[in-house]
């Protein structure tokens, strides 16, 4: 699980990745961490520390809400749920990514036609 993707590339997408996990169901810190590894096909690991910072930001912006689970063993889990605003942001970011992806591909791999 070497970080083959540079942190520079992933940084701007942390929030969208978390929103993608949460739009598929409520979850908590460590589980979200594991789901991201699973999503990447074990190619990428987003550190838990990075996740908590992102949770705080997303919650402040109203994109996610949190609530405590009722586990009794080993302490309560803090679950996160995506809000309507969060879903909107996810869709916006997804569209922006698809656009950027297409353009970047042309910029990086495209050839110029010599007239």
């Amino acid at each position, binding site marked *: 699980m070497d970080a083959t993707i540079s942190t520079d590339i992933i940084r701007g997408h942390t929030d969208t990745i978390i929103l993608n996990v949460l739009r598929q169901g409520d979850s908590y810190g*460590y589980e979200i961490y594991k789901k991201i590894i699973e999503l990447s096909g074990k190619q990428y690991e987003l550190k*838990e*520390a*990075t996740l*908590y*910072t992102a949770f705080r930001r997303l919650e402040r912006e109203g994109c996610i809400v949190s609530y405590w689970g009722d586990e009794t063993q*080993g*302490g*309560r889990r803090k679950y996160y749920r995506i809000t309507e605003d969060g879903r909107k942001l996810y869709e916006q970011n997804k569209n922006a990514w698809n656009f950027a992806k297409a353009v970047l591909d042309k910029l990086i791999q495209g050839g110029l036609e010599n007239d």
Partner: protein
Amino acid sequence: MIETKNSLDRKVNAYIDNLFAGIGASQQLFDLKEELATNMKERIADFMARGMDEEQAYKEAIISMGDLSGLVDDMRKLGQDTAKQTVYSTMAARISTAGIIAGVLIILFGIFTALMLFFMSENASLMNGKKLLMQLH
């Protein structure tokens, strides 16, 4: 805060307490510590299920959490804000107590003056009445 059932739980809690040592208390800090402790314990349990011994799993969990200094800074700022708020609210409380005392004194003075004037005018009218009677006689 968290049930300390065995030494590992205590170790995790102590590690997290130490991480945020000297930071002003806030509800957010309390919640974050519980969140971190719960997730770290689950991660340790996962490592142990994969065959690591307790000590190794504990160390691995700390390493794989990543750099928490950003969160620590966030919490420190929050703690300072709460400290400022407490100072502000005690000052505000003092000012309002002084205000109440001053207000009560002014009201008492007003009542006293009103009573004094009332009795003075009553006395005056009584005196006038007596003068009138004297004149009639």
